[in-house]
């Protein structure tokens, strides 16, 4: 899977680092816990910049290549930050057949970002996600934890507006 690596500088805080060190300490001796540590690190930082990957590699005593290898292998790990509002449009088969691509096109038109990107003001990020299993409501998009179903491209503007202020 292609991953875009962000050019936005790393802005981690000492509190975040402390949290991460605690996670690492808990799992240091488990040989199968690397993915778990990375999942928790992503929850702490919102994404996995190279700086964080280095901290994990040192803490877990594995080469940073191994951490990077896992980070790029699994779709859930993000190497660039997410927007304040995370939009994902489901591109599962049922949603695709029912016109999910038109939703993405409209969002790109309105916000000027393509899937995998984040707006410059950090307000919105867009991704095309794998089937979220709500096929009965196809086509579906989610913004943060809100699910919107049975959409057409005409619904997009109104929904985005709710998150604009």
């Amino acid at each position, binding site marked *: *899977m*292609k991953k875009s690596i962000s050019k936005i500088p790393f802005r981690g805080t000492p509190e975040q680092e402390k949290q991460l060190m605690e996670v690492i300490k808990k799992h240091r001796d*488990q*040989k*199968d*816990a*690397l*993915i*778990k540590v*990375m*999942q928790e690190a992503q929850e702490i930082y919102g994404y996995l910049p190279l700086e964080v990957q280095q901290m994990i590699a040192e803490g877990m005593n594995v080469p940073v290549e*191994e951490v990077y*290898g*896992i980070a790029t*292998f*699994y*779709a*859930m*790990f993000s190497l660039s930050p997410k927007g304040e509002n995370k939009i994902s449009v489901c*591109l*599962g*088969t*049922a949603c*695709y*057949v*029912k016109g999910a691509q038109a939703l993405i096109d409209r969002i790109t038109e309105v916000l000027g970002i393509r899937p995998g990107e984040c707006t410059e003001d950090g307000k919105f990020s867009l991704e095309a*996600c*794998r*089937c*979220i*299993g*709500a*096929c*009965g*409501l*196809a086509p*579906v998009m989610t913004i943060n934890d809100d*699910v919107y*179903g049975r959409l057409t491209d005409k619904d997009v503007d109104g929904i985005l507006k709710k998150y604009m202020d």
Partner: protein
Amino acid sequence: MVSLDKIKAIRDRVRKQFLPADNTYRVVVGMATCGIAAGAKSVYDELVKVIKEKGLDNVTVSQTGCIGACQYEPIVEVYSGDQRVTYVKITADKVDEIIYRHLMGGHPVEKYTIGAVLKSGEDDNILSIEDTAFYKYQKRVALRNCGIINPESIDEYIAFDGYQALIDCITKYTPEEVIEIVKASGLRGRGGGGFPTGIKWSLAAKNQADQKYVCCNADEGDPGAFMDRSVLEGDPHAVIEAMAIAGYAIGATQGYIYVRAEYPVAVKRLKIAIDQAREYGLLGKNILGTDFTFDLDIRLGAGAFVCGEETALMTSIEGKRGEPRPRPPYPAVKGLFGKPTILNNVETYANIPQIILKGSEWFASMGTEKSKGTKVFALGGKINNTGLVEIPMGTTLRQVIEEIGGGIPNGKKFKAAQTGGPSGGCIPSSKFEIEIDYDNLVNIGSMMGSGGLIVMDEDTCMVDIAKFFLDFTVDESCGKCTPCRIGTKRLHEMLEKITSGNATMEDLDKLEELCYYIKDNALCGLGQTAPNPVLSTLKYFYDEYKAHVVDRKCPAGVCKNLISYVIDDTKCKRCTACKRACPVQAIEGAVKQPHVIDQSKCIKCGACYEACKFGAVVKR
């Protein structure tokens, strides 16, 4: 830990709640992910609030899993005496009326029931989902508790004979006998491959090792498939019980459930269920005071489709990049952490407790000669009744689409049904009468897969669909073996060439040749099956490919490069609606004058097509 007598007492006590007397009511709200997405939480909260305000002590409210009729969510069901009433598309503002008229007045509110909402005439005045055509042809084994019990209550699971199969196994049967029962039932893997479950178990049982593992594949990655999610959200204890039975049968003490992180509700309910089972002594050391020890852990997937492949899944549990390993050695010999391991799918496990309780003959009496039992399908796409259906093996595709699914919306024509996700194929209308089982589907170039069944109508371009699936596999190929990494990329490029109108007939031959090459040479199941969407569409929709190549036309009007929009002057009312909608000023004309689209400017966005109310803009 609770004793066997205590479990029996719980069963008898809680069972009574499920048989409410005539003047008492049990209200359940379908709260699987789809229900919650449709707004079930606010309906549930409102029900609880109003019932408390009115002090109705003859009413209980609880959540339940997936009731199955996705497009009618949120669904609320009311049980009283022998009566079951299914309310559909319920919102919080309808709750008052239901409580006042039904729970206090004793009269169901007909206008909100499923019968009133269903379109077909025969279903009028039906109150319960059980009497609809959607439900009538189904047979629920794996889904038996989904939509009935509260998935967060172990007592309710016990009330429906939960954990009795495990108790029977460890107190009455030897491990060999358990394996014999599963073998005799004819159960085959529901994840798609269809390998006989009993044989898998006996292979792992035979191998001696200091440690063995039982794994559950809940990394449901096929787009359009949500059977496993529904089982985990609706009946998590059934999977836990079955895994413990499998552990007893093969001599394993540790199990792992590998579940997608994209399924937070399923993960939450699994965690609750595992904790409850431990508390009752049904998981952990010396289960129910016997020598048998078994425990479970959850591992979260991180979004890699290939991890649904068994060896890749195990590599991922070990905390590495989830790349597949060559087989042999098979997992039964050398699996997770190099130890003998069995891996079964969620739905396979959900069948096990019933097989133990009701016997292998009962299970084998359902289905076809080589495919026994039932299969759950996630019915989606261009079909009236989307939802989760469980049918006996051998049901015809026509029954599923016309009778259960209620046909295609908007009077459109059925074109194909896609099964097996990116590994499967498209079944054309000429095979409409096919009896659905493992072998029949493979014979016509598709496969059972995990159970996604997506219906396509005349507006779907089959070349575009093949390209869609290849787009998926290119993205999800792990890159370990060349035939898959490079081969699928080349396939995708060829399809791109066809859909953009630049291909020759020679390309079609090359396309087919490359498909067979990838099939024969890829390392794992993902690569070996990746060409199936192309091969099956080439086989059944060759004319459509030819139209793209020779005529440079897309018959379904999907492939942008191959369609053009023109104005049918006989239908045009000269209102300029299309002209105003056009983002690039490609339409010439004024009020009361003919409108013409300038093809050199047109970007084929379809805005004019949408804007015209008279059907005067046509795709060619």
